[in-house]
């Protein structure tokens, strides 16, 4: 064994000299890290879930629109819509990386019942498209749409419940047309769906694309072609392949720019919170070590008298800090991971009211954590580094003790 290894032995055994203090310090590290893991996993789950929901339920990875189309206005003028749908759809699905493509027509409308009138977004879809699988699988009552259905619609469950309607109910739908007029049509609710995202479930009505084109006077035009790609990273090259004069091709990042920007701003705040938690833990460890150094002043004087150098004494104290930190980090990872795993399955219910006020942000009423190993590794490493930096003060204090002063504690 070398002197360096012996310092590790002394550092390890020193942890057992005051077991209660070591255990409490370890607990502080473990709880601090577990909290950070939970926070980061929660944020990752919410953000990833929101963007994923937005992509799978609304925006897709890539959208192809007319150059002049404005999403906010949901224009139905032919000049703002896409034509030659059949050729575009066929060529889009041939591009490497495209999983599915779905044409949609959006229109603003009002759903009226005997008691109420509610603004809705009417979406004409190809019911057989794989893109709309979440609607199909989210059906909670009634039946799904058929492509040739001329009188049926699907209504979000939240919307249906608020209006007191359900499968089989008759509804009146006022929809804008391409020539700027309002047309009233009566439909039968074929079924109700729940996506879990309240902003969609309380504002969206689906009908077959052909019917939507008919009642809006859009002809065979569509508002957009929505594409899903193999993964988020494939969106950019697919979008590049689709660009052509007269088209506006956007990716999921473009379409969620506001959300992403908001997340970026929020993350600065969260990183500050992480830093505060880690600093608090570092201060606790530094305090523990300082108390330990004060209690061992005489012993440190002996070691210096025996010829142990300042750098060796510094190393010994840092080793103690490192061992405490590593053990605490290990327990923190285990504890944090267990909580994250549980919440990734059971979720954190936040209630419909909170979920529904997140305008433009696809957020569910039950939020799930997401296990991100790279984040856990990063937080653990940051904790270890900051703790060791915090331990520098007591370590240097111990190393700078003059043997004579330390031995006067005899």
């Amino acid at each position, binding site marked *: 064994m070398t*002197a360096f290894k*012996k310092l590790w*032995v002394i550092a390890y055994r020193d942890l057992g*000299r005051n077991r209660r203090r070591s255990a409490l310090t370890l607990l502080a590290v473990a709880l601090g890290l577990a909290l950070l893991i939970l926070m980061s996993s929660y944020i990752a789950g919410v953000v990833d879930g929101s963007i994923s929901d937005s992509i799978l339920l609304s925006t897709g990875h890539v959208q192809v629109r007319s150059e002049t189309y404005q999403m906010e206005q949901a224009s139905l003028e032919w000049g703002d819509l896409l034509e030659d749908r059949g050729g575009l759809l066929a060529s889009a699905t041939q591009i490497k990386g495209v999983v599915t493509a779905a044409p949609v027509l959006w229109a603003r409308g009002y759903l009226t019942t005997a008691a109420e009138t509610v603004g809705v977004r009417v979406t004409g879809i190809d019911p057989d498209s794989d893109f709309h699988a979440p609607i199909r699988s989210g059906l909670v009552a009634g039946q799904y749409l058929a492509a040739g259905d001329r009188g049926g619609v699907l209504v979000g469950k939240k919307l249906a419940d608020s209006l007191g309607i359900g499968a089989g109910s008759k509804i009146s739908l006022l929809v804008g047309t391409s020539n700027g007029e309002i047309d009233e049509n009566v439909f039968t609710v074929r079924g109700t769906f729940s996506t879990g995202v309240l902003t969609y479930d309380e504002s969206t009505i689906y009908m077959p694309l052909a019917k939507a084109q008919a009642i809006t006077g859009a002809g065979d035009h569509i508002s957009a072609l929505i594409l899903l790609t193999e993964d988020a990273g494939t969106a950019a090259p697919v979008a590049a392949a689709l660009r052509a004069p007269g088209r506006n091709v956007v990716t999921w990042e473009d379409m969620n720019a506001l959300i992403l920007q908001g997340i970026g701003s929020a993350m600065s705040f969260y990183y500050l919170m992480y830093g505060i938690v880690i600093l608090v833990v570092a201060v606790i460890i530094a305090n523990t070590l300082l108390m330990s150094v004060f209690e061992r002043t005489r*012993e440190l004087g*002996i070691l210096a*008298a025996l*010829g142990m*150098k300042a750098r060796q004494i510094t190393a010994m104290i840092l080793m103690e800090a490192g061992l405490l930190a590593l053990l605490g980090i290990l327990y923190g990872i285990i504890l944090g991971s267990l909580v994250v795993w549980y919440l990734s399955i059971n979720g954190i219910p936040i209630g419909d009211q909170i979920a529904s006020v997140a305008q433009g942000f696809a957020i569910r009423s039950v939020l799930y954590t997401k296990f991100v190993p790279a984040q856990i590794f990063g937080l653990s490493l940051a904790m270890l580094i900051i703790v060791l930096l915090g331990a520098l003060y007591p370590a240097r204090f111990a190393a700078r003790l003059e043997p*004579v002063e330390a031995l006067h504690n005899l």
Partner: protein
Amino acid sequence: MPAIELENVVKIYKIGEVETRALDGVSLRVDQGEFTTLVGPSGSGKTTMLQLMGCLDRPNSGTVIINDQDVTRLSKNQRADLRRERIGFIFQFFALVPVLTAYENVELPLLLNGVKPGARKQRVLGLLDSVGLAPRAKHRPDQLSGGEQQRVAIARALAPQPLLVLADEPTANLDTENGAQAMEIMQRLNQETGTAFVFATHDPRVVSYARRVVKLQDGRIIDNGVQTSGA
């Protein structure tokens, strides 16, 4: 040949505005193999002299020469090196590292000096045997009696084969029997190894073992050594 020589050494402690001359122009020579005690009332400068001899502190003026080397100008690390290689310490309160076994406490100076494992083991076991503690090698200080702890401290002090062992009140916390046992061990090891021993003590038992007694008073040597035959 002198093991250590102090030449006109002055040491002043300043506490606030008050200055205390702990040593006032002291000169002393200790030869190799000596068995010497420093005696005097509290505040006479015994411990200060030991600390300067042990390179634990530096004088305000004067020189300390160990094995022909002036150590007063050495850096802190250089003094640590010198202590590790050439000087052993025995303290009043035994001063063992509490988390190390008796074996590991004796081994520590050898580890710090980079002695190879085989030679280290042989030396440690030999020393523990010479102080009668080989069977207790794996016990920690809290499992040893006061006398046993001091014997481990003696073994540790001799581990690096020092030129000089400095002992500050080594029997102060030992009963008569253990105190006598410790002194007999140190006397025997002094004769076997030729290592010089210098004690600072009030204990007449310790003085009775010494071959030379240096008397201090008020930071000055008033008697440079009375040759005795020792106990």
